[in-house]
């Protein structure tokens, strides 16, 4: 956009200042918590952390890893993100491809069947009852099966597939390829942008998921990282972790608060690291989804 639309002046200085304030308000909380996590726990409790650590130390991080629940939770989160995303991509992608065919028999009715659940569902309790009835309670599959199909993502992929040139598919069929071969050999390689977008959407959703871990599993080994974080921050499991840390090393300075802060940073870092690289995919995906409906 080469057109100059707004002339520089006092109004725009205020604009810059307000935006800067917004950015600071957004970033500062994480800076604060990070500084707390690398500060000596006792010192941080008595004095106020501002933007720098007080008595820099990595003891807090050492302390939380004494309890191997963190590592187990981390592993569960990684597993569910990877497996959940792959399954989602497969199920949703196949459905999107089928719907991208204008001549699909009963297309409108089937599409309606897929879209209705986007707007209407039975609520929490019937879902909870169903999960138990399906035997998914305390079962790792509860993290990846319900999210196998994503209707919004399916619509995004459908729009993308519809815009691929027919000739790709036609020449493959002339050579005798069946639908599945066309899908895997032709469509998928040509759809990397939308696949990246969808993987990012479902990946973030899987990584941030905490409620299902709380509701559908009570075995400690099945808790994803965000659920464990929830338990540490809200249900005060930080105290038991503090005790374990002291058992391991009586001299270490650690408080439940420090444990909370450190776990918080640990849960946030993967997303923060990955986010700048994926930002443009998310924005693009959002726009496709919103504009094309």
């Amino acid at each position: 956009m080469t057109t100059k639309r707004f002339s520089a002046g006092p109004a725009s200085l205020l604009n810059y200042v307000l935006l800067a304030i917004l950015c600071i308000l957004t970033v500062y909380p994480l800076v604060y918590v990070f500084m707390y996590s690398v500060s000596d726990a006792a010192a941080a409790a008595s004095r106020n952390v501002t933007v720098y650590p007080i008595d820099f130390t990595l003891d807090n991080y050492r302390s939380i890893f004494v309890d191997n629940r963190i590592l187990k939770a981390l592993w569960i989160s990684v597993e569910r993100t990877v497996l959940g995303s792959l399954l989602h991509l497969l199920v949703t992608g196949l459905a999107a491809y089928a719907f991208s065919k204008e001549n699909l028999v009963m297309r409108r009715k089937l599409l309606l069947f897929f879209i209705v659940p986007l707007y209407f569902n039975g609520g929490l309790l019937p879902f909870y009852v169903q999960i138990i009835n399906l035997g998914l309670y305390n079962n790792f599959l509860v993290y990846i099966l319900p999210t196998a199909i994503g209707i919004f993502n399916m619509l995004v992929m459908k729009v993308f597939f519809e815009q691929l040139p027919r000739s790709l598919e036609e020449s493959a069929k002339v050579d005798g390829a069946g639908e599945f071969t066309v899908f895997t050999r032709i469509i998928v390689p040509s759809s990397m942008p939308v696949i990246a977008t969808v993987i990012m959407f479902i990946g973030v959703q899987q990584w941030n998921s905490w409620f299902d871990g709380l509701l559908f599993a009570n075995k400690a080994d099945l808790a994803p990282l965000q659920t464990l974080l929830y338990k540490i921050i809200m249900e005060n499991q930080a105290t038991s972790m503090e005790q374990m840390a002291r058992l391991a090393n009586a001299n270490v300075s650690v408080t439940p608060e420090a444990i909370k802060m450190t776990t918080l940073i640990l849960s946030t870092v993967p997303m923060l690291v990955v986010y700048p690289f994926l930002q443009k995919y998310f924005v693009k995906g959002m726009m496709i989804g919103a504009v094309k409906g």
Partner: protein
Amino acid sequence: MLKRVWSQRMLLLFLLPGAAALIAFNYIPMAGILIAFQDYKPQNGFFGSAFIGFQHFRTFMDDPAFHAALKNTLGIGFLSLLFAFPAPIVLALMIDSVKNKGFKRLTQTITYMPHFLSWVIIAGLVYRLLAEDGVVNALIGYFGISPISFMRSPELYWLIFIVVSILKEVGWGSIIYLAAISSIDPELYNAASIDGAGSWKKMLYITLPGIAPAIALMFVLNLGTIVNVGFDAAFNLMNPLVMSTADVVDTYVYRTGILLGRFSYSTAVGLCQSVISFILFFVGLKIAKKYFNYSII
């Protein structure tokens, strides 16, 4: 027709896993709504539980805890519509008028970010910063104000909820409006410059009217959310001390259903909310279709 089905059997097969998942996790639970009209007991199952009609509905209408939850839901929902809805629009206008590309990109990257953090993390941050011995209280201490117990004060809860919700989502929400703004014909601005219009006039007479369709569309599609304060946000931000203003219908449903085990009762409440939300959404959809040609299919 059967011939077509057979010739397209592979394509239909592609739909099968998705359809199975939808049936298992969406449609069957939808039918499970019927337990709202029963005295459901897990050991008796669906067909063995007694049918009691609308009794649960009558019960929850009389529950003061439900009234509080409803009041909070509508209150927060209304405030959201009033403040959290325009916020991304304002931000989009502000970001759009930034000329420095670097600053623009930095601002966008930073403000989009909280959208990707879970509410567990956000609530954790909020509690830490607003603690009696936290940074915010330290800051206002410099101005001689005595510490405020932010997260223990029911009267402050709505304010905190709205502010945090806005900070979390304003960036991401501005994307749609930024896209709408960038689709306005630059010639309009040039013509306005020639006529001597300053930035404010341009914004009032060109930009805002230009994105009015997008605004209206978003508004209409979000009508259903008045009744639907997000569970994630509400659940993570609340604590027992602020229950009176923090409990919303979704958390009420969770508490009575999962924690107290009143399956049928809780389902009845949830059903009520779903129906209202759906009606609002449906109305919104009809308006969108009629005035904006916006259609899902």
